[in-house]
């Protein structure tokens, strides 16, 4: 174990996996000089065949990932900001997510798409989206949202070694945050939630960037006499439903914290699962703490007003535990 930055953990995973398997290639816009930081040093180590700057043409990049993967490579496609996923959405939604079924199982697409999502840096609406619900809804894509450096490294390795298209979503602006990273080669399995904090009064389910404020909130709640369990699903597809249900069966109350816009969010989906499969255990409404149905404003104060934070989580959790069911 050693404390490392989130971005450094991702960088290590890339270096290790590219060294491990010569079939791993990475391409995208400005990856050679690592504009997002995570690809640093790869060009020098692995050369331009395996690390390559592309023209700005996202619609083609996502399709090329499908083609190169179908032709035997393990493709890492760096899409920079998650908003640019929209620019390359056609081949994601119509090809990547569907070709395996349409081909009757012939297509094997070991693809890892990396993109940074979320707000908080005054990057405005076209560089701050948390649009992953659209990816989750497509059906044929894995979607992983590591909240810690340790999970970032382990999940990225699992993604790269796996045989299914996987979206690896980095929380923007979390790059500098530190966390424990296990030594040596390890992978973090998909579909295994992590109970980041045990508790008995309610379950806070927090996705990706939301884990940090959720844990902070749990700390303050404790001081106020509320003992919160915090669960990080880590991967949204596949989702560890059993773990979420198990926690809520224990606590009877749930708050889901998600940086996506509320409508058709992952938070909505998790709430739907809980009311379906843990109904008899629920002592109170399932609450969502999400971004309202707006796009990200530029002004820092307005941005703070829409991104879920510690205070909102505390307020919602406290009301949930203190008040009678609605």
């Amino acid at each position, binding site marked *: 174990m050693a404390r490392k930055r989130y971005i450094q953990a991702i960088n290590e995973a890339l270096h290790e996996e590219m060294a491990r398997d010569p079939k791993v290639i990475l391409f995208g816009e400005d990856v050679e000089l690592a504009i997002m930081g995570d690809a640093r040093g790869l060009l020098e180590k692995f050369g331009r065949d395996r690390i390559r700057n592309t*023209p700005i043409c996202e619609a083609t990049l996502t399709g090329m990932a499908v083609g190169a993967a179908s032709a035997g490579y393990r493709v890492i496609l760096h899409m920079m900001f998650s908003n640019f996923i929209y620019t390359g959405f056609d081949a994601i939604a119509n090809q990547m997510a569907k070709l395996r079924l349409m081909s009757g199982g012939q297509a094997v697409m070991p693809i890892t798409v990396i993109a940074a999502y979320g707000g908080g840096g005054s990057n405005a609406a076209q560089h701050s989206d948390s649009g992953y619900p659209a990816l989750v809804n497509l059906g*044929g894509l894995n979607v992983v949202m590591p909240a810690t450096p340790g999970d970032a490294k382990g999940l990225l390795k699992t993604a790269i070694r796996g045989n299914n298209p996987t979206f690896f979503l980095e929380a923007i602006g979390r790059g500098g945050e530190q966390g424990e990273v296990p030594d040596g080669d390890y992978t973090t399995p998909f579909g295994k939630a992590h109970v980041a904090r045990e508790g008995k009064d309610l379950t806070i389910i927090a996705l990706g960037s939301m884990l940090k404020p959720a844990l902070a909130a749990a700390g303050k709640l404790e001081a106020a006499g509320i003992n919160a369990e915090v669960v990080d699903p880590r991967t949204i597809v596949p989702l560890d439903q059993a773990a979420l249900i198990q926690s809520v069966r224990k606590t009877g109350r749930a708050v889901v914290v998600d940086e996506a816009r509320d409508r058709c969010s992952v938070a909505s989906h998790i709430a739907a699962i809980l009311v379906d499969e843990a109904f008899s255990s629920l002592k109170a409404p399932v609450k969502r703490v999400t971004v309202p149905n707006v796009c990200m404003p530029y002004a820092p104060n307005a941005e703070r007003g829409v991104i879920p934070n510690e205070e909102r989580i505390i307020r919602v959790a406290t009301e949930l535990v203190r008040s009678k069911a609605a």
Partner: protein
Amino acid sequence: MATTNTVPNAGQLVALYERMLLIRRMEERLRADNAAGKLPGAVHLYIGQEAIAAAVCLQLKTTDWITSTHRGHGHFLAKGGDPGAMMAEIWAKRTGICKGMGGSMHVADYSKGILGANGIVGGGFAIATGAAFAAKLDKGDRVSVAFFGDGASNQGVFMECLNVSSLWQLPMIFVCEHNQFSEFTPAKDITSGEIVDRARAFKIPAYVIDGNDAQAVWEAAGDALARARSGGGPSFIEAHTYRIQGHLEAEDLMLGGGKYREKSDIAAWQTKEKDPVSRLHAKLIAQGAATEASLEALDEKILAQVEAAVKFAEESEPADPNLPFELMFVGQSA
């Protein structure tokens, strides 16, 4: 414009004719079976364009890649796809090449380099380019061919892929089948300038040919292939042809009395002098590469093949309805 000697010999011309006729007879059967209401989904037929798929694909190796379009039966068969497995697919049977999950617009055989027909116009460009990139990294002599229509040439991904292919000197061949229509819209209504000039703008060697002249296609493709295999980068071929059938077989219903071309326009392309199969037939006889009798026999053989394919399809079990759940992911359920 040919830079290498790529003239087909007599044996190659006969093989080419056989493949073209196989496509024609398969498609005619699909037309009939569609009209008889036997097929669950729509079919977009390739009749009249057979020379293009066949003359390109017969020169490819099994390991070479192709991507195709919504009008993809011809490419599938030309690249060596199995007629029975294709028929069974279109009939939605579990013996189909995609186990009945894809249907007409998605026939694919990855083991033969056929990365699939595609229901998204322009969907094949980037997949083919990605496969060409893989081929380049492999450092072997594999090539990748994208077949597409005049309509698809207006999709931005076309130009994006021209750019990437040229930049990276990928072993890529763009084959534009200019059949003059995009659904019900004449190409000239939606295409500014000449499509070939788009390729040239990216410094890609380009050929404009009569796509109903099988030998002309063979030669251009042979030239482009030699370039690609020897590290010379991408090529572009614009093959002029004509869509004989409707956009899809349900067209009349969709048009509801509307009209976008005259019956006589179609007839003009069905003459002996225009039809690609008839033209090659005449050439084989003229060159002494075949006799009327031998070609007659070939046709019978092919018709039997088609019959067998249909029988196989008809007698196969329906698709397995549980497959969607199993097939969305490798080793992971949906």
